[in-house]
């Protein structure tokens, strides 16, 4: 696809090559691809009912406001409808595709390929998060797939698992609540757990069940386990906070809230609060506020020419792992408060786009 861009912006290409030869990245000025007024920022996610998604939206909007583009900020919600997420993206591209940047929270990793292909054929720009189907990479000639900001779900899994193991003193039986099994995070986070357990033979998995990320589903499962294993359960491992909180309520019903360590993932406010109360042991946050904004930031920097087009970026800039933070009782207070734009401005600056990268994700 490189040549395509070349045809459209020979100057940009020449300049970019020059730059590429001189300094690989850190943008001196490349040719602007769009008028600022033309730029359209699209945040595509599931819905707003979950705090995590709400923060995605808040982050995106906060960035748009900071960049003076709030009137050009578009929110697309697919209500968990995979097909619809694709359709929504396509339908908006009837007009002005070349100046549209999508920040995608994939409903399922299957949407990535069609969405990237849409971007390629219409000339729109797309940044994806979390995970994509194996064997698919931005740097393989897909110039309009600006970047994939991956989350190392296995590392996340390892992190919480270590917290849990530590909390139960390295031995005893735990129960495991899976997310939707066909999703990448569910698989990888569990892989992380298994990796940790391999190092602690004292800890055994009494039982594992899928609860589809859903706190309502987690509740009765936890109840059943309590009636089956009773005191045998030393700890609860949940693949996300929602399920962890569901399990927590079941524990509360049995009068065990706070007495049995529970860990989750996502770092939603409710979970952080519970950690503060000592009812939850730990969670891991990938910072939705940041995820919701960074893709748009990349787009703006690139379209305004403050950063050269993606085909000039290094592989590690096209696909990298996002730094995550483990939240425990110690630092819960710090993350309890609502994230504010001020805290992120530095990271939105075009020379700081990769400040949260922990290295290549391929």
């Amino acid at each position: 696809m490189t040549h395509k861009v070349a045809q459209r912006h020979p100057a940009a290409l020449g300049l970019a090559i020059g730059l590429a030869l001189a300094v690989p990245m850190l943008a001196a000025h490349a040719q602007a691809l769009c008028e600022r007024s033309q730029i359209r920022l699209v945040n595509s996610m599931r819905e707003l009912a979950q705090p995590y998604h709400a923060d995605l939206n808040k982050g995106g909007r906060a960035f748009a406001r900071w960049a003076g583009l709030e009137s050009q900020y578009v929110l697309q919600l697919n209500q968990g409808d995979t097909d619809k997420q694709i359709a929504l993206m396509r339908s908006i591209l009837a007009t002005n595709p070349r100046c549209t940047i999508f920040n995608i929270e994939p409903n399922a990793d299957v949407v990535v390929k069609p969405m990237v292909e849409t971007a390629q054929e219409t000339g729109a720009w797309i940044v994806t998060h979390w995970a994509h189907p194996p064997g698919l990479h931005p740097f393989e000639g897909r110039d309009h797939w600006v970047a994939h900001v991956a989350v190392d779900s296995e590392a996340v899994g390892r992190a919480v698992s270590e917290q849990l193991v530590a909390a139960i003193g390295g031995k005893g039986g735990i129960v495991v609540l899976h997310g939707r099994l066909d999703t990448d995070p569910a698989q990888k986070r569990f892989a992380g757990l298994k990796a940790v357990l391999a190092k602690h033979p004292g800890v055994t998995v009494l039982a594992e069940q899928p609860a589809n990320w859903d706190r309502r589903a987690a509740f009765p499962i936890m109840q059943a386990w309590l009636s089956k294993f009773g005191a045998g359960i030393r700890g609860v491992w949940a693949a996300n906070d929602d399920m962890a909180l569901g399990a927590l309520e079941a524990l509360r019903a049995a009068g065990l809230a706070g007495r049995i360590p529970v860990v989750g993932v996502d770092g939603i406010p409710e979970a952080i609060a519970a950690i503060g109360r000592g009812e939850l042991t730990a969670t891991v946050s990938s910072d939705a506020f940041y995820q919701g904004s960074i893709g748009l930031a990349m787009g703006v920097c690139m379209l305004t020419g403050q950063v050269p087009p993606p085909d000039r970026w290094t592989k590690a800039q096209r696909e990298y792992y996002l730094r995550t933070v483990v939240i425990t009782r110690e630092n819960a207070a710090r993350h309890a408060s609502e994230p504010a734009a001020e805290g992120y401005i530095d990271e939105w600056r075009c020379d700081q786009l990769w400040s949260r990268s922990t290295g290549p994700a391929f």
Partner: protein
Amino acid sequence: MDAVRSNAASSLAPTAVLAVLVIAVSAFAPSFLSAYSLRVLAEESSAILLLATGQTLVVILGRIDLSTAAIASLVSVLVALAVPRLGAAAVPAALLLATAIGAWQGVVHVKARVPSFIVTLAGIGLWSGIALAVAKTTVPIAGRDPFLEWLGQSSWGMPHAFALALATLACFHAAMVRLRFGRELHAIGLAERVALLSGVPVGRVVVLTFAASGLCAGLAGTAMVARSGSGNPSIADSLLLPSIAAVLIGGTAITGGHGSLLRTLLGVFIVVVLRVGVAIAGLAPAFEPLAYGLLVVVAVAATIDRRSIGIVK
């Protein structure tokens, strides 16, 4: 064909509703009528249309098939897994299996006298469960299959998947009006006892119909694989309700007997426009479900063929 045909042909109301919707949406977003947008709509319609085609037959029969989406998902996974091994034979094999699955559900429903609602509900669990078990997660297609590639492309702005869907619908429609099978389908939906006592092999017709539904679901799954380049155990799940809605919005009676595939075609377009149109029209996304729900009710209120449906259940 006389009674049945006559009320099948009267698809005026759905057409009108569709027209109104399109005009309304394009009033907000003129680009909605651009060739590009229409192609997007066509692409979006393909899978739903295939699912709805099979569903229509089942609904005319007075039954319901909740398993279509699950079967489609299963097929998507199987195709993705099988292409490297079987190559071009993968898709036919998967379709065959889908048909067999549909037929099996029909047999259980007929022989064991279990309501189709339950059989196919159980089907959701069975098939998506199997898909999950064999695939674990998203399976990208390793290897090439010319048919799948063709299916993913489009010529003269006509997505091949959509063409396939239309062709399928056309075939079944022809069968409905030309073959005795179609007549018997309606007869069973209208008065199963009479059909039975007239020597219509009700069991066989029911099984055939569910098999057809399975086949359509299989095609839908194939289309989705071709589109996303990978199979996933829940890839089609979100299309079940829209596809059923399409059948009913088209004006086919959930009580069976009355309806036609032509109506369903319109129903599918209406549903798809509702799905994406509301967003394109620029409504605040938080209000989408609200608007969608209300519009669905209004659409059905406008399209339903009250002449042929005596009692509204």
